[in-house]
């Protein structure tokens, strides 16, 4: 990255922090958490720091404008010591819901191979530019569609935490990561003392990993569980959804299956209410019933990254700080705002315009602005969008 670009990024970051440093936040107890930063120009990691208070930390961030800021989910006796001497007391139960896991095809679609020299671009991961045989850069652009499906998963996770795992709503916080994911924190002492094995089991449960095939017809079809709580209820909701929107599932049901589902809707709903999968088999035939259940089963899984939740020593991006993948802040999102429009919630900063030369970028829609697509051109864009393009490696100031 060019020196003038780094200077520009630091000025945008500084503008954000000088107006919004009160948004910088670490869940209590602040002084017992490990804090880490990635610092300009090369974004090298500095770890094992700790701060006495939120005020001290905000002041530090304001004065140092880091590229990224992190806090540990764990609460330590000695947060600033090396890992083996920190001595964890407990840790937030944290989930990373990311577009790359939720909808890999969507992320792939937004992944381009861009030549920094001539701006030629192609989908996917390719090494050399065909025009000037320059080394291409792989760029993952942000996309509404990917954020929308990821938001949906975050919402489902939120409700499963409450309804299934019995966690109180006040103990849950949902954040938009500033890029293509959501971070969900559960801060409660009882849950906080769970070890890695137990955390691993929770993610398996949420994603239905290791669940027996017992819900499928022909098998012992665990009829009592479908009516009771947990996965049974999740599965029931998804079956209902497929039945209610039968025509969207023509790919597996085929035309006659779709009409059969529509004609028998009331009877299927009745069978579901009784928890009788076998009745659905009678109505639809075993093959179609299986397909219906398999689809519902896939949709009932809640996708989270298990290695993140399991690792209690992991650091998470600090709420209220900017993400150097996008230049956008990680922000708490109220329950009713968890959707693709999270980008419209970003606060005011970097609104004045600046000239940038862009090699390539698809249309960008962040905040209230929609710009692009760009191809080897100079354009005037708001500073926060310029920062986004520069951080993606496809633009330069001037």
């Amino acid at each position, binding site marked *: 990255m060019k020196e003038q670009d780094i200077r520009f990024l630091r000025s945008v970051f500084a503008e954000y922090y000088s107006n919004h440093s009160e948004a910088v936040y670490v869940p209590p107890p602040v002084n017992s958490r490990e804090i880490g930063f990635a610092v300009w120009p090369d974004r090298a990691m500095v770890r094992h720091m700790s701060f006495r208070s939120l005020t001290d930390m905000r002041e530090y961030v304001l004065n140092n404008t880091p590229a990224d800021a992190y806090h540990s989910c764990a609460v330590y006796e000695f947060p600033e010591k090396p890992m083996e001497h920190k001595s964890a007391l407990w840790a937030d139960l944290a989930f990373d819901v990311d577009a790359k896991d939720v909808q890999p095809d969507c992320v792939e679609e937004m992944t381009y191979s861009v030549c920094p020299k001539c701006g030629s671009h192609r989908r996917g991961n390719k090494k050399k530019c065909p025009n000037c045989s320059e080394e291409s850069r792989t760029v993952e652009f942000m996309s509404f569609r990917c954020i929308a499906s990821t938001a949906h998963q975050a919402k489902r996770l939120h409700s499963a935490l409450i309804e299934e795992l019995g966690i109180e709503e006040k103990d849950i916080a949902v954040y938009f990561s500033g890029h293509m994911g959501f971070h969900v924190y559960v801060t409660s002492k009882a849950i906080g003392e769970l070890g890695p094995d*137990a955390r691993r089991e929770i993610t398996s449960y949420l994603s239905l990993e290791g669940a027996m095939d017992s819900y499928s017809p022909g098998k012992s079809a665990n009829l009592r569980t479908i009516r009771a709580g947990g996965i049974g209820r999740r599965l029931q909701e998804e079956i209902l959804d497929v039945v209610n929107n039968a025509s969207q599932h023509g790919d597996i049901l085929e035309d006659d299956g779709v009409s059969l589902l529509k004609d028998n809707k009331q009877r299927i709903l009745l069978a579901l209410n009784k928890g009788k999968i076998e009745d659905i088999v009678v109505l639809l035939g075993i093959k179609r019933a299986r397909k219906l259940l398999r689809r519902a089963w896939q949709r009932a899984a809640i996708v989270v990254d298990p290695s993140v939740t399991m690792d209690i020593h992991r650091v998470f991006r600090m709420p209220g700080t900017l993400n150097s993948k996008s230049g956008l802040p990680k922000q708490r999102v109220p329950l009713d705002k968890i959707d693709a429009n999270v980008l419209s919630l970003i606060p005011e900063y970097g609104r004045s315009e600046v000239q940038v030369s862009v090699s390539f970028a698809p249309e960008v829609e962040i905040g209230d602005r929609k710009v692009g697509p760009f191809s080897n051109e100079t354009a005037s864009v708001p500073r926060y969008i310029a920062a986004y393009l520069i951080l993606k490696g496809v633009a330069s100031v001037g």
Partner: protein
Amino acid sequence: MAKYPFVREAREFVGQHFDLNLAELPESENREAIERGFQRVYQAIRRKKVPFDTQNMIRYDTEVVSFPVAVMLVALINDDMLRNMYATAEAKRCSELMAQDSADIHHIADELEFHFRVVTREDEQNLLTIRLVDYLAFSPQLWGEKWRLANRTVDRGEVLVTDHEFARILEEKIKRTILERTRADVSGIKLPTLLVEKRTELADVWREYKAAIQPEVRLEPRDIPPCMNRLTQRMTKGENLSHVERRTLVSYLAAIGWTEEEMMSLLRHSPDFNERIARYQLEHITGRRGEGKKYSPPSCATMKMYGLCFPDKWCDHIRHPLKYRRIT
């Protein structure tokens, strides 16, 4: 009460009669209790079992008092492997007794302050719910497919279990309770002569037992995937691995070239080790017995299904534990 010497009543009873911390064991009266306490540990090592018969019930006082004596002896030897072995044997004994008399289950749970709720439903009997955190804390060692949380009814933080399953969860809870007791710091406590003698005797027995186990287990930590590393470490700590976990580990070690004797010395760490059974199982897995069919170690997908996958960043692109390499 003599059946379950760890329960609160027993603690109080023992407290009234003598207090181990005071080291004022009245030898003459309690010679029998000390002998029985020694036997509890001795049998746990030799037979992986603490024997119990109705005669023990007649010698009620002795039986109850022998428990803190046994705990004291284990604490004195101060070896995690022995702690695990003894706690496992005691817990198994309790669980066998609970199975004989299911009325005991609720009573024991109450005594251990283990929260549960009986569920009444017209179609099912003997169901209860326990707290999710307790389920997660006390079921891991028992995990087979049916124990996976995904196969459980989980509602508002409560998990549905049958009373038989509940007894197994309590077994784990009992084991941990006993383990914790054996971790008490007993250095500097003045002991009565008879107990000192028994400690020496037990130390000899234990030294002899451990001599049969090679202390160093060959392990190249670099290219052992975290899932297998975790199993090996739990094994060497003397934790009780489930059948699936053992089979997984042994088939993996056999595949990376461990010899049968090397594997046997690892298996000897298990708290319920039995030479004959272990060798039989080993030969079965490595294909020397049965139809000559070798068990190959499970793939990553199967490991996930078992709940035994604990990936790190080098696991990202592999589908089989044998393919794990740390590339730096």
